[in-house]
Structures are given as structure tokens and as C-alpha cells.
């Protein structure tokens, strides 16, 4: 097996271009939580903390975004992980979906 080390950044190729090309190779999916008039604000905050392991301030910020703007993009992930998060959020009966990131 060859043992030649591969340089992390190829000559002439800038780091930003490499980052951008990831989006084309692996489409991103947005996990979105939608507002509804039934889930309690404290409950939504608690679920965000539990599912994503966020600290309370971050969870509250997203909960308020859901409440005020009608939705909040919680994370951007590959399909499998985004599905996993939606399953977790829906087990708590939150109104969550995943949408393909068009950017």
C-alpha cells in the first residue's frame, strides 16, 4: 500500500472552493420546526435541548424564532441525519419536517 501522504490543500486550489464543492456532492437538508398553537413554549425549548443537546439559551432562541417567525431552521445535515432528527422531534409531537436546502 502506498504510503505517500496526500497534502490537505492541493496547490492552486483554494480552501473556499473545496468547501463550496461539498454542497454539490452532498445535498443538504434543513430540519425545520413550524409554529403551532398547541405546543407549550417551555416544552419546545426542552425538546430542542434534549434532541440536539443544546444549552438553554440556544434552544430558547430557536423556540422564539418558531413562535415569532412561524418557523425556525434548526440544523442543516445530510439526509440520514436530518431524518433522524425529524423522527426524534416528531416523537415529542413537534411539528417538524425536513426540506432540501436549495442554496
Amino acid at each position: 500500500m502506498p504510503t505517500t501522504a496526500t497534502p490537505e490543500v492541493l496547490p492552486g486550489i483554494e480552501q473556499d472552493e473545496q468547501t463550496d464543492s461539498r454542497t454539490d456532492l452532498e445535498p443538504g437538508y434543513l430540519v425545520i420546526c413550524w409554529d403551532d398553537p398547541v405546543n407549550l413554549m417551555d416544552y419546545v425549548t426542552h425538546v430542542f435541548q434534549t434532541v440536539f443537546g443544546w444549552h438553554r439559551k440556544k434552544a430558547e432562541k430557536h423556540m422564539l424564532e418558531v413562535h415569532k417567525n412561524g418557523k425556525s431552521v434548526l440544523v442543516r445535515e445530510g439526509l440520514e441525519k436530518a431524518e433522524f432528527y425529524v423522527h426524534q422531534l416528531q416523537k415529542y409531537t413537534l411539528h417538524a419536517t425536513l426540506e432540501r436546502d436549495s442554496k
Partner: protein
Amino acid sequence: MKLLRTGQRQIQFELAPSEKALLFHLLQLYPLVPSAHHRLSKGRKMPDREENQRLLEESLQARRQENRQQVDAMLNETGRFVERPAGYQVSFTRGEIEWLLQVLNDVRVGSWIALGSTAEHPEMEPEMSKQTMSHVMTMDIAAFFEMGFLSAVSGEFQPGHE
């Protein structure tokens, strides 16, 4: 619902006899949310859309069965609720509180759906009848217990506070 003690693993509450009866009533209603209520995506461009939707429904169904078994075990467990002069003392692990929150919120959201208030029509005002009043009360009682449990796990609810 009074918080008595908060430990690393367990949290102890005291419930009045009427609160215990209401909690049991709510737990017996579970599950209320119909399987078809949950959608994986609003978009139409999802890969394997139908297959992924089916997987979601299976996953939720499995969780409902697991929660239902835990509910039944709790309702039938002798000695879980210890009778005292002021009411019943009961301890829950933090893990048990987590699935109790899922169960109670399912009952709350399921009652809301039964009232006709889906996410697409949140402005709908239900017509008041004996049946709809029962759903409204179920929603409020579920919220009462949810808030009690949430305050206890977040540390905002101090021991001795009702």
C-alpha cells in the same frame, strides 16, 4: 402537584388524590395522535418520499407501542404511588419523565386535533359541546402536568413549591 426532592437520578413528587386520578386518566387515553398526522416533509422533491414517509410512521408506531407498554407497567405497578396523609408520593427517574412528557404531549396534541385545529387551520374555534369541552379540559390538564415535570427537570420548580 408538589415537588418534594430532586436527585441526580430521581425526582419525587406529591400528588393530591384528585391529581393522581387525573394523571391516570390522561395516561389511559394515550395514544391520541393519528399516525397519518406526521409528515416527514412539506416539499415534493424529496428522494424516496413515500418510502421515507413509511419509515417515519413505522418509527413513530414503534415508539408509541414502547410508551404504551411503559404506561401500562406504571399504571399496574403496586407501590409506585405511596399513600400518605397529604396525598400520594411518587418518584420518577429523569428517563421516565422524558417519556411521560411525550405521552402527555401526545394526549394534548391529540385532543387539539380532535377539536379540528390542525396546523393548517389554527384559527378554527371549536363549537362548544360536552365532547369538545372534554377535549379542551384534557388539553389543559395535560399542560398542567407537563409544566410540573418541565419545571422539575429544569430546576426552576423548587422543592416544597406547588
